[in-house]
């Protein structure tokens, strides 16, 4: 028994190594003194310092954060509404279709999503004059289209676990439907809303393909800057930047995970 457990740990170690050694290397090399990304010549934090003076990178990062936050907020609103419709409105007409359409962005190749959105934006600009040009607005809208699907999945599972009689009890005690939603439903699904928001934020921050399609001049997001600079030869600054992104993303995922775990016992209690 001890032997087989020992083997299990080995498998786990190999699996984790496969997943995380590349990331670890990236973080280690961000502290490399040498300009050459693959040759270690000593510890230094100078690339982090240089990163702070790289206007282009910082602007792109700020743009990405703004897009990600706006996207996450809208995605949470729309995704929650969609989840509500699916969980709470029974078998309405076209429910299956709605469900399929909602899930489609999860599996749609990004290239297709990007291209079709580009076509849409160009057509709209010609016919209704909005959105004028491509940039922050178009990228954000594009991100909302797929983030909503992810948020809907997260919120939906939380909503369907929730005891329906809680809402009925609130109504029975005299709360009108809107009041029931605000004081009972929302607080109880709040952890799902927050983890949905963080998920949407991260998805948007990462996105390269769709952004490239719908971005315009002067609206270069962080992944786009990174990608283009890598093609021209990797600077250790990118490593430094990537390390920061890894840090932010892992904190976000950790927080989202903790939140949904903390809420689990409370949900079971009822």
């Amino acid at each position, binding site marked *: 028994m001890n032997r087989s457990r020992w083997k299990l740990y080995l498998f786990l170690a190999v699996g984790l190594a496969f997943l995380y050694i590349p990331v670890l290397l990236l973080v280690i090399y961000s502290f490399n003194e040498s300009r050459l990304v693959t040759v270690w010549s000593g510890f230094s934090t100078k690339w982090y310092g240089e990163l702070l003076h790289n206007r282009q990178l910082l602007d792109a990062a700020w743009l990405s954060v703004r897009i990600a936050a706006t996207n996450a907020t809208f995605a949470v609103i729309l995704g929650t509404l969609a989840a509500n419709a699916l969980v709470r409105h029974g078998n309405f007409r076209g429910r299956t279709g709605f469900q399929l359409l909602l899930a489609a962005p999860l599996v749609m190749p990004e290239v297709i999503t990007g291209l079709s959105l580009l076509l849409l934006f160009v057509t709209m600009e010609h016919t209704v004059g909005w959105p004028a040009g491509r940039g922050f607005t178009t990228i954000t809208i594009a991100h909302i289209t797929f983030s909503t699907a992810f948020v809907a999945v997260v919120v939906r599972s939380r909503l369907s676990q929730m005891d329906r*009689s809680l809402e009925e009890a609130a109504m*029975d005690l*005299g709360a009108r439907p809107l009041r029931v939603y605000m004081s009972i439903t929302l607080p109880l699904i709040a952890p799902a809303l927050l983890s949905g928001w963080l998920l949407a934020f991260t998805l948007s921050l990462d996105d390269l393909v769709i952004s490239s399609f719908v971005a315009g001049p002067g609206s270069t997001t962080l992944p786009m800057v990174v990608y283009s600079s890598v093609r021209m030869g990797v600077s250790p600054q990118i490593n430094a930047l990537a390390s920061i992104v890894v840090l932010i993303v892992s904190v976000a995922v950790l927080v989202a995970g903790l939140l949904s775990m903390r809420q689990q016992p*409370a949900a079971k209690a009822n």
Partner: protein
Amino acid sequence: MANPAERRKLEPWQDPKAAPYVRIDHVTKKFGDVYAVDDVSLDIFQGEFFSLLGSSGCGKSTLLRMLAGLERPSAGRIYIDGADVTDIPAYSRPVNMMFQSYALFPHMTVEQNVEFGLKQDRMPRKERAERVGEMLALLQISELRRRKPDQLSGGQRQRVALARTLAKHPKLLLLDEPLGALDKRLRESAQFELVNLQERIGITFVTVTHDQEEAMTMSTRIAVMNAGQILQVDTPTAIYEYPEYRFVADFIGLVNLFDGRVVETQDDQVLIESSLGRRMHMRDLHPHAIGTPVTVAIRPEKLQICATYQENGINQVKGVVEDIAYLGDVSIYRVRVSPEMLVEMTLTNVHPRTEQALTWGQEVAMEWSPTSGVVLTE
């Protein structure tokens, strides 16, 4: 014995002039093609502890939910205190419901849970605090006021749920399996507490239960439901002693059902030839014509050991003890009287078990009196 006027006060359903507090008038509820509640009419009077009793899926919960306003009847009207509430939504009805799961809000403390309904009524803060204190004191849970529901035991949660539903001083309290989530011992003490509470505050209670013992102990009247319909509405005693349907007799407690045919009648007395080949003489409250196929229902405790068994004796059967269920206070003897039929007889264990008169494989004759059972047709 109480005089008729007092009796009417205690049993308003006996008084033809009494106005019902809740009137369910030909109510039907369909889910798709399924009739959950099928043309039910029912009057419930002020101050009653009324139970809807039936197995799961008989429509009792749906009926309760329609009273609460959580379901809309497909047809029929519901009146509470004389007003038609059929189209009034749950949040405007003078009715509160205690849910089977208790449905305590997990993100609120006990105090906030109890206060919730009062807040919806925009009751001033000071009055609200007073009422909450009153309710917590009534149910003896004042020391739990700052706890969250997940820090409470099952019995404590039940009290909080009760306090929350009572806080608004509803005219009518609905309880969906109020004791279903408690363990057996707690349930017995909770039954008495619930009845005492109801008598003290004088609110009309309507409860739903599948537990016949619970219904018998607590209720002023019971409605036995099956397949969306009400079969019989009566006091617990009448339901037990004078069931009107085989289903009711069978559902409440144990019963022996002898099939037979009426062969002779005189006034309210009938003579029945049973399929066991034995003759039974019974009092029949709804006299049946000669030749009618009937069922004689006799409770196991109404049977006695017969000392003078006769081959053509009336109200007597004989068989062999096949099973004994020892319950401490009583034992249930299952006696094989024919290849198809087991008769159950309950005897009080007057003597310790080792000295019991009856044992497995023993032949025993049993008898009963003409007034200790009922004659049923369906």
